[in-house]
């Protein structure tokens, strides 16, 4: 929480100022590396063990997702607040996963066939 920020009503800053913008990353390089990662994903799926595929694929998805977030959505240049917001969303999902895990994965349902 900082106290010495520039003041003013929001109408004045609703339209971003020029200096609000940052140096741009080279979008083409990001795009090409996304495609390469995607190719790896598709080829990784040929591995016969589903658990290995799952882990590889999930990690690569996280990398790809964060690349889009960081460079295409310019999260890298956004203020901490946005990071906090997204972090809270991830924290929510983490708690949900931890809470659901024992009740979904480790329960073998006792299936009675419904007549």
């Amino acid at each position, binding site marked *: 929480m*900082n106290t010495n*920020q*520039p003041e003013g009503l*929001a109408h004045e*800053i*609703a*339209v*971003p100022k020029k200096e*609000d*913008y940052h140096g*741009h990353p080279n*979008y*083409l390089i990001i*795009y090409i590396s*996304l*495609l390469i990662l*995607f190719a790896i*994903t*598709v080829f*990784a*799926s040929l591995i016969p063990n*589903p658990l290995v*595929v*799952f882990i590889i*694929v*999930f990690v*690569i*998805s996280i990398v*790809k*997702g964060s690349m*889009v*977030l960081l460079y*295409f*959505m310019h999260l*890298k*240049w*956004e*203020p*901490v*607040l*946005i*990071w906090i*917001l*997204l972090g*809270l*969303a*991830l924290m*929510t*999902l983490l708690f*949900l*996963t931890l809470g*659901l*895990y024992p009740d*979904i*994965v480790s*329960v073998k349902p006792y299936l009675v066939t419904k007549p």
Partner: protein
Amino acid sequence: MNTKITWREIPQARLAMWALIAGEFAIFGGLIVMYTLNRLKYESWGEMAQHTNVIAGTINTLVLLTSSFFVVKAHEAALHKNKEKVKMWIWLTLICALLFLGIKSYEYYHEILHGFTLPGTQLLAEGKHVETMYWSFYYTMTGLHGLHVIGGALALFFVMRHATKTEKDYHRIEVAGLYWHMVDIVWIFLFPLIYLIH
């Protein structure tokens, strides 16, 4: 991460869009968490995943990744208030969106033709009870994602028309673009989880 830029310097539309995106992550994330945990539980879902059309899914992923690139180029053009380029990139994006929806409908058509429907009546008749839920998840997740694609495309179209006609509000291109990227990220997670793990 920029710790120096103060909180108030985020333009309000962008801030609201980020909050919306965080909320959407909680919705789609919840679905993905539920699907993934069930996927770990039921190995027989791998068999069902083989019935998905991986080639169509791959093309669709390429289309969405490319459209994300187009949107970001449109944002770059919008910064320079380059009307023609904004129009071009957004139209390319919209074509991508239509292509995506077209391929998706093609997939749906063929899957339904093979009896893999949302309630999975045919599978039930074959005695494959658990497997029906794979298709329920498949249609729920891709369907909800498809609705977001439609919404994002409409938003991009109207924002673009407004910006190029009135020569102002170019920053809205970025905001609608953020939403489009969110749709892309969701697909980045959905595609491998649904199609690729056999």
